[in-house]
């Protein structure tokens, strides 16, 4: 898994690629919580190049969302591949996270 932190039109974006599993999710957790510590009003996670996610990856996002909500921030997901979307839907988390088609849709909301 690779995790890059960047900016899109003044918004914090975490771009992920590769496989998010029990091995890589602790790294992801550390990066996300590091970003969240600065309380960005909007945090977008871009899944464009994510090929796999397991329950430990999902748990990392659920935990991160709780932190973001605690300071009334927003956490948005963009460009989820269908295979990843299916996992969020099955887990009934597609209604919990704010899921957007792409980065432009995310920033326009």
């Amino acid at each position, binding site marked *: 898994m690779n995790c890059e932190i960047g900016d899109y039109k003044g918004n914090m974006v975490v771009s992920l690629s590769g*496989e998010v599993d*029990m*091995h890589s999710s602790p790294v992801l957790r550390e990066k996300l919580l590091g970003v969240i510590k600065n309380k960005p009003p909007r945090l977008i996670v871009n899944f464009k190049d994510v090929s796999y996610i397991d*329950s430990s990856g*999902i748990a990392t996002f659920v935990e991160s969302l709780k932190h973001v909500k605690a300071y009334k921030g927003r956490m948005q997901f963009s460009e989820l591949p269908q295979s990843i979307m*299916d996992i969020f839907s099955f*887990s*009934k*988390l597609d209604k919990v996270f704010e899921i957007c088609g792409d980065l432009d849709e995310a920033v326009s909301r």
Partner: protein
Amino acid sequence: MKNSVTLKIQSHPRYLSMIRDVTVRFCIICGLDEETIGKIKLAVDEACSNVIKHAYHGDTSKEIVVKYGFRQKKISIIIEDSGEKADLEKIRGRDLDDVRPGGLGMHFIRRVFDLVEFDAKKVKGNRLLLIRRAGGKDEL
């Protein structure tokens, strides 16, 4: 030994990707469709993650054995460890409406396999038996 593969790996999360790769290759050989293969890959990964977390309590020096078999259009996957006996209550999985970190692994396993059973006869450690019939359950 007909139509079977055995994989023995160290209980380190870095090797889970190898288990996923072998699982996918075996399922392709068995002629399963892409969607089912994706679900089986996730389920086997979750079962092995459970072994590392719950049976071995994060000890990465132990052994996990994964046995794949395909007979009479039925795929069977057996996952063995020598760790602590599975506490079914601990790995049962949370209510999907109860949004909190964790508790999804068993749901991913049960959604694709027709049989999910721990072998009560195994004296030390766990033997998890996963079976999926051809055209088996499909909840998505």
